[in-house]
């Protein structure tokens, strides 16, 4: 634990225990999403599915990176991850991104993907809202993750044809916003 770090956050008026609980729930959401996206990705096959596989993979890897980036902050603030992986799964801040019943329906897979990203966008917006101007490091981290979650949402949304596309495929390495937090 980083004693003075926690003290500074407490002094800013944030309930640190509540914040840590939120971070742990979101870490759980990231790791479980990484797992469920693995299953979604392997089922993205055929002419339609293969075209989406690459962005599903980028989102999958970046969600794992988000988990990795969140963990140090949880411990700095005096929190910890549950000992039991099953417990960790069940406290996730977002619902499981289960494979749809009809696995050949690429649109249904996209709906699962965009639904998961929308949950994440709300989660990190919430964390940014409560930490802005108070807990600078958690805010910076949550904002970096939010930037990537917004891109994921846009990719899947645009494949669903929900609106005009302002995005291109990611160039270069994954996690352009979060990589600075990865040690």
């Amino acid at each position, binding site marked *: 634990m980083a004693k003075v770090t926690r003290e500074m956050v407490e002094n800013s008026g944030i309930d640190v225990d509540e914040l840590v609980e939120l971070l742990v729930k979101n870490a759980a959401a990231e790791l479980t999403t990484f797992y469920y996206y693995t299953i979604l990705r392997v089922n993205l096959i055929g002419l339609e599915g293969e075209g989406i596989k690459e962005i599903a993979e980028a989102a999958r890897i970046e969600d794992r990176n988000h988990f990795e980036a969140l963990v140090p902050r949880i411990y700095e603030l005096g929190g910890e991850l549950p000992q039991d992986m099953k417990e960790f799964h069940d406290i996730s801040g977002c619902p499981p991104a289960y494979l749809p019943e009809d696995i050949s329906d690429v649109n249904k897979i996209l709906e699962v993907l965009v639904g998961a990203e929308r949950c994440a966008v709300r*989660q990190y917006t919430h964390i940014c809202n409560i930490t802005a101007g108070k807990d600078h490091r958690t805010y910076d981290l949550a904002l970096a993750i939010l930037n990537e979650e917004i891109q994921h949402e846009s990719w899947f949304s645009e494949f669903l044809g929900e609106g005009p596309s302002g995005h291109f495929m990611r160039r270069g390495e994954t996690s352009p916003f979060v990589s600075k937090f990865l040690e």
Partner: protein
Amino acid sequence: MKHFNREKLSTYNGKNGTPAYIAYKGKVYDVSDSFLWRGGEHQVIHKAGEDLTEALEEAPHGIELLEKFPVVGLLK
């Protein structure tokens, strides 16, 4: 349609098997089936059994997510 006052609403807190109800602008919604309201809590800080009209104004989502759930009564 049932009528609730704040005291009655507070008993539907989603704990110990009770349903999770929340109020918004005078309507009482049953959010028991929501993944995001498991255990009668949402985003750590929001509790079932309460009027969340003010809280929802600051939430990172609108009323559309609440409208997916059944209205079970009115808050007096």
